[in-house]
């Protein structure tokens, strides 16, 4: 494997939340149960033996049902999660756009939050100073930029966050879901800016439920199911397969629901 992003046999599992230990009493009780072999914690495998290589110029779309492991995959690539098995290697500066408005402090002004956000994302003061004017202009906040953020509407916060996101110059860009914010006019502007951002990055991974976005932007698509990559091919091929499997499953589920509602269990096929 010689891509910018390489995952080799990566597995990640989480302890089921209702078994999480949150007090020392529970911890002691669990230790007791473990010693007596009466109980072992249950685990949920979010990524199961995933191998993947993404190189320069690749724009990889990641699709799959809710809870299939798409976001976990992105967080693993971005270094937020450490794999339980396997290895992850990423070469280059990574920008992960997983959620807008992360890291804002509402007691600080918009301008101060630009600095705080920039520093959190790993920029230095000089880089932030160079970009701050551009960010303020893009966010269209006018005189509100020096007002504490607690007085901002959610739209204003999202616009500022988005403006910061598109001002970055990453080598590797990881995007989780569509980042469309603001009113119609701002949405058009943000889509163009996002396009420019995607052009700047050397390789990207995009998680989205918007199959049109995936088809139009990506050069390659992977389908994730139950933590496994079940398909890795051209966008049209994977999207077609995904739609087909979703339709089959939807029909099966609907038939089962109707059958359950019919007297005597029903016989709808």
């Amino acid at each position, binding site marked *: 494997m010689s891509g910018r992003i390489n995952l080799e046999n990566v597995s990640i599992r*989480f*302890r089921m939340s209702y078994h*999480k*230990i*949150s*007090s*020392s*009493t529970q*911890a002691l009780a669990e230790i007791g149960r473990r010693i007596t072999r009466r109980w072992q914690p249950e685990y949920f495998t979010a990524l199961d033996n995933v191998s993947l290589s993404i190189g320069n110029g690749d724009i990889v779309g990641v699709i799959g049902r809710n809870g299939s492991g798409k976001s976990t995959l992105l*967080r693993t690539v*971005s*270094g*937020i*999660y*450490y794999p339980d098995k396997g290895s992850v290697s990423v070469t280059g500066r*990574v920008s*992960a756009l*997983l*959620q807008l408005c*992360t*890291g804002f*402090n*509402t*007691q*600080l002004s918009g301008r*101060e939050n630009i*600095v*705080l956000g920039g*520093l*959190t*994302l790993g920029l*230095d*003061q000089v880089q932030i100073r160079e970009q701050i004017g551009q960010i303020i202009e893009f966010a269209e906040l006018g005189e509100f930029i020096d007002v504490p953020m607690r007085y901002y509407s959610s739209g204003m916060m999202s616009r500022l966050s988005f403006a910061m996101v598109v001002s970055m110059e990453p080598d590797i860009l990881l995007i989780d879901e569509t980042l469309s914010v603001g009113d119609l006019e701002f949405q058009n502007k943000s889509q163009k800016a996002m396009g420019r951002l995607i052009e700047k990055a050397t390789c990207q991974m995009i998680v989205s439920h918007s199959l049109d976005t995936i088809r139009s932007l990506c050069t390659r698509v992977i389908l994730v199911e139950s933590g496994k990559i079940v398909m890795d091919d051209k966008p049209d091929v994977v999207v077609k397969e995904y739609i087909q499997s979703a339709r089959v499953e939807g029909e099966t589920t609907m038939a089962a629901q109707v059958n359950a509602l019919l007297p005597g269990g029903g016989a709808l096929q």
Partner: protein
Amino acid sequence: MIELYREIWKRRDLINYMVVGQQQAAVFKSMLGGLWHVLVPLAQTGIYYFLVAVVFSAGGAKASLSFIMIMMGILHYALFYHVASFVQPAIHGNASLLLQIKLEPILLVAAGFVRSLRIWNVGIVIYFIFFFALGGTIGMKALAYPFLLLLLLLLAWVMGLLVSTAAVFVRDIERLLPILLQILMYASPVIYPVSFYPDRYLQLFLLNPFASIFALFHWSILGAEFDVWFPLSVIVAWVLIGLLVTHAFYAWGRQRFTKVI
């Protein structure tokens, strides 16, 4: 370990900005704002002075000396309470940030520690104002004070990193820590002189790092007389072993933080 401190130094601007934001949030809608950082240590000193020196007539010294001793103990010990308040929740309290951005969690611990120091510094300045105003004098032993202060800071840092890591996995720490700190305060010469310890058990008491460091403050600032090498060895050993153990624990924990917070 060195890499982590390099990262802290490299990202000191971020740490400062985090502290400023946290401080502004803390004084939001407060009428007295930052003045509380002055009032709280003064009130605490007054309360302990009344209890120890007036009610129990302890200390065996004149009133101003007792007041200076209690003030020194309370205001220096306050650092551990600040660490318990601001450093302990530093990692699990920033779950949403750590789940969205790749950020070294020790930076959050450092931000909580810097915030603790900024508040604690006010108390230390107040102490020395009172110390000299009440006729306190310092001798050659005071030259050791900066070094002792460094040991105190290192002990507080070790405690902070340990409890912030542990609190991610076991939240009971949040409730347990203030109780433990209170017990340790009464077990250490914070509000009473070192001479309160029975001679036979002095070394046993001084195995407690908090007792050792405060005994050394008594020696350095208040002129208490005893063999300093034992408490000095104890505190240096606690700091060095503490740093190694705590960093090993943090290194183990950091790969698990985002999965459990």
